[in-house]
C-alpha cells in the first residue's frame, strides 16, 4: 500500500509546485501588465499617497504635490494651470493622467527604472518612495507671450502657438487656447472633479483638445514654404520666372485656380521670390503641377509630415499631405495641395518644424519638451540630447529659402512681424477650410534670420469679433509670432 501513497505524495507535490509557479506568474511575470490596467485602483491609491515629483519650467514648479489632509496624503497642484494645461496635462483619480503627467509618470511617481537605486534606499529605510522631477525645455517668457497673444485677440479665440529652438528641437513654447484648469480635475473631491470633467466636455471651445500638436488643420499658404523647398531642390532658383497671372486653368477640366485678390500677382511672369512674398496662388499651383504629387509629398515627409512619432515626449497627430489611402491626385488637386489646400493638414507643431528645418540649414531636429529627468534629490539622471529627425533640404536651398522668407517680411505679407534691428524670416497663411467657416490664420517665422534662435508657428482657428474679411495670417497671427520671437531673442 506504500507505493500508491508515494505516488499520491508526488501528486501532492505537483499540485503545490503548480500553485507556486502560478503565484510567480501572477506576482512577478504578469504583475506589470496587471498593474498597468487602468481600472486598477490599488496602483492609483498607492501613487496618490506618494509624493509625486514636480514638473519644472526654469526654476518654477508648474505641477507639484502639496501635503494634503484628506484621504490621500498629497494633492497635485498646478501653479499656472491655464498657461501649462496642455503640457502638464492632469493627474486625476477618476480620469487618470494625461500629457506629461502620463508620459513621464514613471519618473514622477518614482517607479522608473532610472530611480531604482533610490527605491532600494527607500525600501531599506522604509521610506515611502518619492518621485523624481522633470525639467521642461519651455522658456516661460515665450510661453507667456504665446498665451497672452492668443488670449488677448478676443474673448473666445481658439488657436495654438509653438516655438522651437531650431538648432536643437527644444520646444520653447507650446500653447493651445482655450486652456483649462487641471486643478479641478485633480481635486480629491470626486464630485467636483466629475463636474469639472462634464463642463470641459460640454464646452463648445473643446478646451481639452491640444490644438498645438494633437489636431491637424489646412496650413494654407504657409505650406508654400514646402512647395518652394521642393522647387528649389528640383532645379528652380529664387529668380526663376514663374506664372504670376490671375488664373490657372487645367486641360480638359473645368476648374480654375485663382489668386485671393482675383488679380494677377503683379505681372504675368514674376520671380519665385516675388511669388512667395505676395503668396501667389497661381504661381505655386503652377509649380506644384510642374513638380507633381510625388516630389511634393517627399518634400513634406522630409519636414516630418506622415511621421506618427515626431515629438519625443508627447503624443502628436500625424500631419498629412494627402488623406490616408487617398487616390492619386489629379492636376487641380495637386495644384491645390501645393498651396496648402485640398487634403493637406498639419499641426501647428509641424509648421513650426518646417520653419525650424529651414532655419537650421535644412536639418529638422526632433522636437522635445523634457530637458532633464532628475531624481528626488535633484541630481540629473538623464539630460536629453538633441536628435536629428530629417534632412529636409540642402543647406544651399535652406539659405535661399531664408532669403526669400526675409523678403516676405520686408516687401510682402509678413510685415507685422518685423523686429527693428533683427532680420526676420516669415510666411503668412490664410486657409480657407470651408465656405461656412472663417478662414484659419497662420504665421510661421524664425529669427534672427542670419543666426536663428527661435522658430515659431502661430495658428488662429477662430477669433470671435474679427470680421471674416479681416482674418489674415499677417494681421492676426503675425504680432503674436513677433512677441514670441522677441521674448526669446532678448533673453
Amino acid at each position, binding site marked *: 500500500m506504500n*507505493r500508491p501513497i508515494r505516488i*499520491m505524495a508526488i501528486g501532492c507535490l505537483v499540485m503545490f509546485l503548480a500553485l507556486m509557479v502560478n*503565484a510567480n506568474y501572477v506576482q512577478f511575470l504578469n504583475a506589470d501588465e496587471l498593474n498597468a490596467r487602468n481600472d486598477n485602483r490599488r496602483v492609483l491609491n498607492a501613487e496618490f499617497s506618494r509624493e509625486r515629483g514636480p514638473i519644472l519650467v526654469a526654476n518654477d514648479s508648474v505641477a507639484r504635490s502639496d501635503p494634503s489632509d484628506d484621504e490621500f496624503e498629497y494633492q497635485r497642484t498646478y501653479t499656472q494651470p491655464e498657461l501649462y494645461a496642455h503640457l502638464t496635462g492632469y493627474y486625476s483619480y477618476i480620469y487618470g493622467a494625461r500629457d506629461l503627467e502620463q508620459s513621464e509618470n514613471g519618473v514622477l511617481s518614482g517607479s522608473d527604472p532610472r530611480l531604482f537605486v533610490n527605491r532600494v534606499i527607500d525600501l531599506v529605510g522604509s521610506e515611502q518612495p518619492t518621485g523624481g522631477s522633470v525639467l521642461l525645455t519651455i522658456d516661460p517668457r515665450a510661453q507667456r507671450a504665446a498665451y497672452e497673444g492668443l488670449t488677448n485677440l478676443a474673448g473666445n479665440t481658439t488657436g495654438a502657438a509653438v516655438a522651437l529652438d531650431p538648432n536643437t528641437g527644444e520646444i520653447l513654447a507650446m500653447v493651445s487656447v482655450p486652456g483649462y484648469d487641471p486643478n479641478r480635475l485633480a481635486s480629491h473631491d470626486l464630485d467636483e472633479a466629475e463636474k469639472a470633467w462634464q463642463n470641459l466636455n460640454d464646452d463648445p471651445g473643446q478646451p481639452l483638445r491640444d490644438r498645438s500638436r494633437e489636431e491637424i488643420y489646412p496650413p494654407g499658404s504657409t505650406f508654400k514654404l514646402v512647395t518652394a523647398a521642393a522647387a528649389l531642390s528640383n532645379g528652380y532658383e529664387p529668380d526663376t520666372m514663374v506664372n504670376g497671372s490671375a488664373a490657372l486653368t487645367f486641360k480638359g477640366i473645368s476648374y480654375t485656380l485663382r489668386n485671393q485678390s482675383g488679380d494677377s500677382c503683379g505681372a504675368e511672369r514674376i520671380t519665385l521670390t516675388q511669388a512667395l512674398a505676395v503668396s501667389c496662388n497661381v504661381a505655386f499651383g503652377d509649380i506644384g503641377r510642374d513638380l507633381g504629387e510625388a516630389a511634393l509629398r517627399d518634400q513634406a515627409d522630409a519636414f516630418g509630415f506622415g511621421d506618427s512619432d515626431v515629438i519625443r515626449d508627447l503624443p502628436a497627430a500625424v500631419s498629412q499631405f494627402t488623406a490616408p489611402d487617398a487616390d492619386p491626385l489629379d492636376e487641380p488637386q495637386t495644384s491645390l495641395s501645393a498651396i496648402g489646400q485640398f487634403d493637406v493638414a498639419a499641426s501647428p507643431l509641424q509648421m513650426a518644424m518646417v520653419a525650424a528645418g529651414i532655419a537650421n540649414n535644412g536639418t529638422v531636429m526632433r522636437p522635445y519638451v523634457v530637458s532633464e529627468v532628475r531624481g528626488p534629490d535633484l541630481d540629473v539622471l538623464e539630460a536629453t540630447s538633441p536628435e536629428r529627425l530629417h534632412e529636409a533640404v540642402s543647406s544651399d536651398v535652406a539659405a535661399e529659402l531664408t532669403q526669400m522668407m526675409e523678403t516676405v517680411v520686408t516687401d510682402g505679407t509678413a510685415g507685422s512681424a518685423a523686429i527693428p534691428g533683427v532680420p526676420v524670416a516669415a510666411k503668412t497663411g490664410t486657409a480657407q477650410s470651408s465656405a461656412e467657416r472663417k478662414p484659419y490664420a497662420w504665421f510661421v517665422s524664425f529669427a534672427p534670420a542670419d543666426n536663428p534662435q527661435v522658430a515659431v508657428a502661430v495658428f488662429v482657428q477662430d477669433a470671435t469679433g474679427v470680421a471674416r474679411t479681416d482674418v489674415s495670417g499677417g494681421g492676426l497671427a503675425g504680432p503674436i509670432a513677433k512677441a514670441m520671437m522677441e521674448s526669446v531673442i532678448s533673453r
Partner: protein
Amino acid sequence: MSALGAGFVPRKRRGAELYLVVLALAVGLGAYVGVGLGVSGDVPADVYTFGGGLALLALLTHAVVRWLAPYADPVLLPLVIALNGLGLAMIYRIDFGLADRGQSVGPFAGPQLTWTAIGVAGFVAVLFIVRDHRRLQTYTYTFGLVAILLLLLPLLPVLGVEVNGARIWVSLGPLSFQPGEIAKLCLVIFFAGYLVVKREPLALAGRRFIGIDLPRGRDLGPILVAWLLSLGVLVFQRDLGSSLLFFGLFLVLLYVATERAGWLVVGGLLFAAGAYFSYLTFDHVQLRVQGWLDPFSDTDDYFQIIQGQYGMAHGGLLGRGLGQGDPVMTPYSYSDFIAASLGEELGLAGLMAIIVVYALVVERGLRTALVCRDTFGKLVATGLAVSFALQVFVVVGGVTRLIPLTGLTTPFLSYGGSSLVANWAIIALLMRISDQTRRPAPEVRPLESDDATQVVRMR
C-alpha cells in the same frame, strides 16, 4: 506493509517541537506587531492580551501533546500554529481596513481568536478521547451516517441558510456553522473503514486497457455512490469545492486501498463527465469557468477575482508590507480570498512560504501514513493529508486563477469557526496516528503460564 526499520530508535522529539512552536509563535506575533506598525506606526495596544492568548494556546497544545501523544510527529503542531497565527494577524489587519472603509462587517479577529481556542479544545478532546485510532474503525458506519446527516443539515428548511448562492450553512440563533467541514473528517474515517474491509474484492482486476487493469463492472457500485453523493452536493448545495473534494478524496483512498490505478481512470472519467455535465447545466459553474478564463471580459461579474489578481500583482515580489496594501478592496479578503490578501501584503515571497508550510503539513501526514503499521491508520492518514492538499490546491489555485474559483476555506488562515475546528481535529487525528506509529512496540514478555494465551493490548 513495511514495518519500521530495525535500526529505528523511537524518540519523542518534544524538545524540538517546543523550539519550533516558539519559532511559529514568533511568526504569528511578529506579523501581529507588524500590522500595528504598518497601520498606525506603533505596537498594537492589545498585543499582550492577543499575544498572550495565542502563546497560551500554543504552549497548551504543546503540553497536551507531551502528555497525550508524546511520540507524535514534532513538526505538524508548529506548522499549524504558524499558519493559525499568521491568519489571525491578517484578519486583524483586515479589520482595520474594513473599519477604514466604514464597512458594517467585522471585526473578525476577536471571534477568530475565540474559535482558535475552541479549535484547540477540540484538538485536546480528540487526543484525549481517541487514545488509539484503530478503535475508530469500529464506528465506520456511524461516521458514514453522521457525514450524510451533516451534509443534509443545511438543506433543512429552518436551519439551513443560503449564503452567496451556496447552501452550506447552518444557523442556530447567533451561531452559524458549516457542517461540511466536519463531514469531511467523518467521510475520511468512513471511507477508510469501509475500504479496509472491501479492498480485497475491489482490487480484483477486470479488463486490461493500455497496461492498466480496469476494475470489474460489478464492483463499480461504491464509486458510483460516491460520485452521486458529490453531484448531490453540487446540485443541491451548489458547493463546487466540497463536491470536488469529496469525490477526489474517495478516489484517492480507493486507489491507495486497492493499489489499482484503474480506479483513477474510472474516477477520472466520471469526474470529467460530471464536470462537463455541470458546466452545461449550471449557470454558476459557467460563471466560474468564464471568470477563470477571461475575468476582464466583465469587470462587474468577476470583480472579486480581478481584485485578487490586482492585489497579488500589486504585492509583487516582497509585498506592500503588512497594513500597507489595499486587501479590503477584494470582497471576502478575510475569508475566501485571504491567500490573495497575504500575497498582496507579504508578497510572492510570503505566499510561497505559506504554500511551503502547507506542503510540509501534507508531507508530514503522508509520512505518517507510510510508516503506519495498520491499514486503517494508513488510509485515514492518507485521506486526511490528501484532502488537506486538495483543499489547499482548490482554494489557493482558485484564488490565484490557476483553476476556476470554487468556494472552500483556506485551512487555518481564513476566517471561519467550522473550518478552524475541523482542521484542528484533522491535525489531532494525524498526530494520534503518528504517535501510535512512532511509539516503541509494547514489550512482549514471555508468559509463563498459558501458551495459548496471546497478549492483547486493550485500553
